[in-house]
């Protein structure tokens, strides 16, 4: 539901809220007494959790572009119209300086990307369960009205059907050509429900090009799905299944961290010559807000981004965890005066500073962390990670999905193999525990939060 409807719903219902004694009054009576109830009961104004969850700390992140200028200078941004200009032999308008930006949250940025995809490509279609009215997370709001029900439509409730349909469409060009060309943008309502479509992805989409000797491909297929935890999703609305896709060569897997990133990476995924599974961290739909360029642009796939440069520890992460790593770094750099957190930080930093290798190169007294957003999970940007670890000698990988079979262990294996002699500490992975899913009431102790990330940073630094 939209923020407005959510607010109004929660507003009207919390006004009808209860006090210990008033609970005995019937609901209809309480509704009539709405205003009095508010005044007498402060607890009634507690908001129900929004469907997509909320992470207030994200609002303060320095990674979100607060100004137009910052947004236009985004690293690696490629404006679509510059290619056209160059082809026409015009002076390139590559410099972003004249462009507009608008404040958007992540679902608005995704919607913006979808709208551009529909406007710039006649073959593009957007479909999935509940897509026509705007989608359960509002990412397709108004698109059916704008582009028509032939191009933006509901499907019956079948994920294998949705992806299979997308594969078929993407194997046909608009000119009736058999083999490739259509742009199919499918939505799976939650990543947790992608499994009925796993067969279509694993055995069909990923092998389409390979099995036909290049005659057929479904590069026009993009499968979007909300992923990761929100605080109240329980076993089936919280999972991070990207690890299961690691062995799916032929498919790309992309996970953005913010509105601006989501728009550019989604447009790149839609236009990439390969099928892409695009996983959207759902807590960011509302919580992450930044200035997003309004024009058509892409950001590079299979290219990690260094968000903070540092020399002593490489932290690799993606999606929601980016912000938790940022907070952990903030704690590390500003240890609380009192208490266990502060003293643990000071002890670990001392141990680190006394390490012979650190002492000898006179690096100073406090460790500096390099933070990398992996962005593309498959095929991932190993060169960037490797290059960083070769400098820092230490690697920590953070994600929400379980450790076993996850992205962290994949990176740990590759880095251990290639940078063995550069490493000053074993590679550490902080992820979800290997429980079968994210248990509802236990979530705060399942998801790696800033304190768990901080502890892991300290452990790797003080090794």
């Amino acid at each position, binding site marked *: *539901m*939209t923020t407005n*409807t959510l607010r109004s*719903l*929660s507003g009207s*219902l*919390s006004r*009808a*809220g*209860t006090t210990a004694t008033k*609970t*005995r009054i*019937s*609901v209809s009576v309480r509704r009539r007494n709405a205003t009095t109830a508010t005044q007498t009961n402060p607890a*009634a104004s*507690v*908001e*129900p*959790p929004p*469907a997509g969850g909320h992470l207030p700390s994200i609002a303060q992140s320095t990674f979100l572009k607060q100004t137009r200028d910052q947004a236009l200078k985004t690293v690696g941004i490629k404006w679509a119209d510059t290619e056209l200009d160059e082809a026409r032999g015009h002076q390139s308008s590559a410099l972003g300086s004249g462009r507009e930006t608008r404040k958007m949250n992540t679902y608005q940025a995704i919607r913006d990307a979808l709208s551009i995809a529909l406007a710039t490509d006649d073959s593009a279609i957007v479909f999935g*369960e*509940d897509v*026509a*009215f*705007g989608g*359960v997370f509002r990412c397709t709001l108004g698109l059916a009205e704008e582009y028509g029900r032939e191009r933006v439509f*509901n499907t*019956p*409730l*079948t994920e*294998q*059907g949705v992806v299979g349909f997308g594969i078929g469409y993407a194997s046909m060009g608009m000119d009736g050509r058999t083999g490739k060309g259509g742009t199919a943008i499918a939505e799976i309502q939650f990543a*947790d*429900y992608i*499994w*009925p479509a796993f067969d279509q992805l694993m055995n069909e989409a990923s092998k389409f090009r390979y099995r036909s000797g290049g005659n057929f491909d479904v590069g026009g297929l993009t499968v979007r799905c909300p992923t990761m935890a929100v605080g*109240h*999703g*329980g*076993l*089936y*609305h919280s999972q991070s299944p990207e690890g299961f896709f690691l062995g799916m060569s032929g498919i790309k897997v992309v996970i953005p961290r913010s509105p601006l990133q989501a728009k550019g990476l989604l447009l790149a995924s839609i236009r990439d010559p390969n099928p892409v599974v695009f996983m959207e961290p759902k807590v960011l739909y509302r919580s992450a807000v930044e200035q997003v360029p309004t024009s058509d642009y892409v950001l590079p796939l299979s290219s990690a981004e260094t968000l903070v440069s540092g020399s002593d520890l490489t932290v690799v992460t993606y999606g929601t965890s980016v912000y938790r790593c940022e907070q952990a770094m903030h704690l590390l750099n500003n240890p609380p005066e009192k*208490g*266990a*957190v502060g003293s*643990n930080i000071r002890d670990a930093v001392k141990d680190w500073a006394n390490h012979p290798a650190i002492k000898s190169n006179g690096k100073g007294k406090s460790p500096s962390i390099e933070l990398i957003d992996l962005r593309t999970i498959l095929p991932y940007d190993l060169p960037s990670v490797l290059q960083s670890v070769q400098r820092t000698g230490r690697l920590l990988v953070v994600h929400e999905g379980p*450790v*076993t079979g996850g992205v962290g262990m994949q990176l740990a294996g590759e880095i251990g193999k290639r940078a063995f002699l550069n490493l000053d500490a074993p590679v550490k992975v902080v992820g979800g*525990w*290997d*429980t079968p*899913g994210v*248990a*509802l*009431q*236990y979530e*705060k*102790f399942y998801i790696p939060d800033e*304190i768990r990330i901080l*502890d892991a940073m300290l452990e790797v630094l003080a090794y």
Partner: protein
Amino acid sequence: MFRRASRSLRTPFLHPRASFATRALGRLPNSQSPIVSQPHFFNSVTGSNEQIPAFRLLDGTGVPIEGADLPEIDEAFARKLYENMQLLPNLDNILYNVQRQGKISFYMTAYGEEATIVGSAAALEDNDEVLGQYREMGVLLWRGFGLDNVMAQCFGNHEDTSGKGRQMPVHFGSPKHHFHTISSPLATQIPQAAGVAYALRRTPDRSNSVAACFFGEGAASEGDFHAGLLLASTIPSPVVFIARNNGFAISTPSSEQYYGDGIASRGPGYGIDTIRVDGNDVLAVLTAVREARARSLDQGRAVLVECMSYRVGHHSTSDDSFAYRARSEVDDRKRIDNPLVRFRLYMESRGWWNAEAEEELKSRLKADVLKAFKHAETQSRCELSELFTDIYGGEEPWNIKEQREDLARLLKKYGEDWEPWRVELQKFKNKGQELSTK
């Protein structure tokens, strides 16, 4: 192996449908299909342009329709039906609002489907195995699950006998009540029901039980629906499939869910006896499911019942249905086709109910619900160590042990000092002590 094999595994040559149209041109050798000389396309299971009929006994005002044979029920049973139906909205009202206050994380109401759910529950035996979707709490309540268990599950507290607070609200389960644990992924229970029923028929003590499998018309679009019906008919298994066709799957109206004649039209495609019933007529549902159950047991095969109803509430607390349907549409349905009112009027006509009884019932139910709510609200969660239990049976693997110990180490180190954890730990029974002091 098949106790009822003599009936259910009879050879295709004796199949009843094989005999309806013997023609002079003979039959295909391996399908018994009569041969015709003109191309004949068909797209109907009724053999005419008529849609599949819907079985009804009481009209909207509770008056038996012409030709109706009402099931024989006495006053006590009628009251039990009505009280169970009334319990649902009373419980829904409170829990919906409790969610709005942020006290539980989620909720789903059954507004409008009371007759479908309670009528089915009443037609089943209490030890028939139920595999539900999520809107069938009324079946559990009919079987005596109790309000405290409902509340404990929705609050996810240490009294949650359904799943130790691991699942979202309304994901109930109880072996004692023969109710298999609800899981959010849609339609997964449908092929499972075939397996459950197959197990029943292989168990001598359970030869009088069926599996009852509930699902929405939306879920019936999943591949698992087709797999489930196919298996239950081909590997003959006594399943009563109960489709709740309430017109919506979240925002998607049933008109965009299927092009054919509802869910019922699919039954004959799998060789399954099928009926469509007015899901807002509790006596019709009761009669249809009773008959379905009897057939299922008798033939050892699946039977399909499609209950036509209307989802009066929002899909869930995460949904605002007025974004995709008119408020007036909902109000009209509530007024014109209300399953509770319909049965109440019938009861009144029999002299079994009156305004006084109605008042008494509503205030009693409300008081019961509030009592259970107040108790549940103050209970702590399970012990935090339950995060790591029930993963494997038998020996605990090294990784689970190591991760449990890692969390224990972290709690020892930061549990007191790190505010978000300190606050969260208070919510658990033992406050995480059993982990951190080990």
